[in-house]
């Protein structure tokens, strides 16, 4: 037996630990099961006494098709299908207080939440220590957690307390579209598993004990986090990079060696930019985990200090070897999941009740990073003949289902969930940035992050900070987009020698500009608040005749549903038209030559 010890550098900022977990877990790699002993130290930091405890038992969602999760999903999740021959579940065998008082854990709803009545309520300011023994069966991975052969991605695997707030437990059954919500605390987790396995986890390793019986126990510690996930495989290979004092560790599978450079480059950019824009990354390590090609359901997920990337395919090109270097799905997912370190892991949003907050801010942050690295016109696909920006993808998604508010509980949404929580927020934040200015927006987000790091803010908290920080009217953003489903299209509807009429379709109005270009080459930039349905700009006959007019000429308003009608010329754009016709002519001639030789 040998012991390897490595103490991590402790430079995480202090947070008030509310729910801290110490877990000793053993993985049976053959049976794909877990058995564990867990100790929870919970501090009641509220003014209300707590009479009972409510736990999340997420793995029970994968037990059978009667669960809410599988019923809502059909049973699929992001294109991956649940395997009925390899379900998942969790069972608490024993729960007691440290003085030996046994508690009874009663399932609620569909078994993904359970409640235990306490003999004495936990008074404000007091703490309680609860011990549990539990077993779990990991499912074959399809919704973030589980196994594929000897690869394990273990998330939402232990009985996790809900959040006590406003005099009650905030803990919902596990819905298809819902993610997670829990308190900050410290985690000490010891994982016993076969000695040949390489592990990765939230936090950083403290020690590794290798036994003569072929097993090992790896201990991890994480401070000021809301969750703990881990991964293991005998096939993991490692690559690391130091980014501004943070160790970025990438655990990848041999068949995905081609991803190493790209993932680390993307991670480096993400950590650097996010730290600059929002606040420093306070943890010593960030772990990025690969997912097997036939287990991509494990990828695309965030946990505190650990993200699961995987070779996801946002465009349809990522899995084609000849063209996959042109596709940036890999970078987009990596940057996105790392963004959640700020908007979810450090600012602990309620992902179930207000999913647009963490997904929207994270995906908007993803857009910013990708555009900064690659350029806005090619940040998603970049090849000789095809360039697509990340914003383009989001616009297309949004246009498919634009009439959806961003605010809503996860289970309120059906197929429009991704529009409401990803696409529309990206466009909305981007429009806000282009409208009020990058500095003003960063000031809002910076203030919000500083105020609510290690907290649980809501949409109203965000609005309060935004309106305190920014002097401009933001009602169109919150009232029109967050809480409502207003849409917008600006168009130049008529143009004469000395007047231009612009119109607004839809209910949303965003201040914008109209650029009028005259025949002598001079131009005028008019402001329009967008409130009226139609506005006409008149010029005297002393002014040169108008050549063309463009509303929102720099295309700042990404929510504008049709940019093509934003500009009109009095005379046809003959030279541009000729250029296009000559391309059609060239293509026709080529086709005739190839097919007939003439």
């Amino acid at each position: 037996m040998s012991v390897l010890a490595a103490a991590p550098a402790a430079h995480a900022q202090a947070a008030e630990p509310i729910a801290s977990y110490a877990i000793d877990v053993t993985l049976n790699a053959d049976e794909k099961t877990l058995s564990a002993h867990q100790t929870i130290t919970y501090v009641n930091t509220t003014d209300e006494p707590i009479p009972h405890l409510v736990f999340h038992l997420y793995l029970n969602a994968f037990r059978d098709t009667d669960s809410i999760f599988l019923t809502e999903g059909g049973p699929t999740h992001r294109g991956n299908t649940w395997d009925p021959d390899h379900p998942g579940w969790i069972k608490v065998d024993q729960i007691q207080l440290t003085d030996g008082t046994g508690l009874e854990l009663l399932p609620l709803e569909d078994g993904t939440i359970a409640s235990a009545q306490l003999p004495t309520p936990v008074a404000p300011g007091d703490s309680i220590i609860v011990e549990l023994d539990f077993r779990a069966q990991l499912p074959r991975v399809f919704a973030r957690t589980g196994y594929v052969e000897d690869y394990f991605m273990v998330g939402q695997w232990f009985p996790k307390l809900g959040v006590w707030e406003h005099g009650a437990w905030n803990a919902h059954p596990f819905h298809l579209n819902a993610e997670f919500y829990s308190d900050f605390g410290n985690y000490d987790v010891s994982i016993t598993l076969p000695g040949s396995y390489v592990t990765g986890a939230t936090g950083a390793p403290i020690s590794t004990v290798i036994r003569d019986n072929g097993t090992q126990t790896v201990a991890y510690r994480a401070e000021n986090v809301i969750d703990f996930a881990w991964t293991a495989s005998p096939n993991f290979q490692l690559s690391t990079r130091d980014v501004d004092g943070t160790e970025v560790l990438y655990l990848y599978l041999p068949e995905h060696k081609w991803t190493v450079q790209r993932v680390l480059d993307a991670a480096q950019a993400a950590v650097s930019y996010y730290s600059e824009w929002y606040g420093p990354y306070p943890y010593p390590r960030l772990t990025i985990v690969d997912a097997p090609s036939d287990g991509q359901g494990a990828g695309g997920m965030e946990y505190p200090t650990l993200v699961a990337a995987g070779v996801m395919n946002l465009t349809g090109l990522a899995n084609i070897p000849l063209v996959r270097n042109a596709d940036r799905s890999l970078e987009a997912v990596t940057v996105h999941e790392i963004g959640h370190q700020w908007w979810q892991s450090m600012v602990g949003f309620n992902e179930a009740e207000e999913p647009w907050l963490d997904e929207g801010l994270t995906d908007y942050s993803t857009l910013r990073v990708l555009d900064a690295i690659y350029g806005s016109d090619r940040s998603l696909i970049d090849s000789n003949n095809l360039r697509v920006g990340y914003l383009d993808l989001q616009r297309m998604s949004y246009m498919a289902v634009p009439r959806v508010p961003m605010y809503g509980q996860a289970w309120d949404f059906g197929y429009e969930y991704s529009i409401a929580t990803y696409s529309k927020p990206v466009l909305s934040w981007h429009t806000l940035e282009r409208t009020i200015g990058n500095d003003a927006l960063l000031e809002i987000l910076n203030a919000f992050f500083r105020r609510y790091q290690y907290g649980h803010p809501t949409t109203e908290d965000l609005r309060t900070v935004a309106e305190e920080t920014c002097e401009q009217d933001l009602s169109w953003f919150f009232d029109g987009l967050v809480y409502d489903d207003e849409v917008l299209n600006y168009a130049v509807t008529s143009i004469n020698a000395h007047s231009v009429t612009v119109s607004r379709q839809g209910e949303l109005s965003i201040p914008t500009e109209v650029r009028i270009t005259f025949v002598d080459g001079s131009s005028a930039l008019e402001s329009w608040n967008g409130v009226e349905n139609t506005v006409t700009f008149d010029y005297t006959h002393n002014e040169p005749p108008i050549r063309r007019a463009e509303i929102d000429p720099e295309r700042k308003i990404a929510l504008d549903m049709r940019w093509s009608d934003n500009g009109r010329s009095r005379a046809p754009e003959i030279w541009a038209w000729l250029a296009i016709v000559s391309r059609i002519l060239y293509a026709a001639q080529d086709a005739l030559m190839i097919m007939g030789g003439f």
Partner: protein
Amino acid sequence: MRSTRCQSLHTGFQSATRYWPVLLISYATNLMLGVALAILPGISALMNVGHLTALRQTADGLDAWQVIDIVMSPLTDTTLGSIAGVASLTSWLRQATLIGLLTILAVPTIAWITQAFLYGGLLSTFTTLPQPFQLKGFLQACWHWFGAFLVWGLAQAAVTLVSVAVVAGLGTGLIALAGWWPVWLVVPSLLSIGLLLAAVFELTRAAAVTAGTRRIGPALSSALRLMLGRPLTV
């Protein structure tokens, strides 16, 4: 007399330069047909989107946002409705789609007919070397070979389509079984088959004109003998 490769090449260049009117007729035909095919899409674009400043950005290539605007315009119209006085992208999209489909169908048909008509005259002219070019003789030859080459063109298309379909089908099955690596076999195979069949039929036409026969059997035999005896001709 059996010519060397260099002599054959030299003769070919000599024919091409001597009979430059044939090249001019070929290019002029190609240009006029191209213009004819481009007219409808051009007019449609001018009528519907000619006044949009977005057209200026389209001139050097389509931006992704423009493609998205066009493709999503039917859904956008459903959300917003139309604006009075503003040409609808959706109706232009429908028009452009229809014109595009017609053009795609027309191109092979036009190519087939053009080739069938001009090829006989072209080949006949080259066989008269060193006689000067005569337009009347050229047109007579075009007409003389037109019917036969129309039929042979159809046959060539049919044989090529069937061959490509078979290889593509087998290749798809192989890729489904074995992953992506068979692409490196399938794509070159498809190209080779297409080129080989094109070469066979080109030589058949040349052999027919040289021998003065409109029967495909003897011409094809002659072409195959030439290919087997002198593979470089392929």
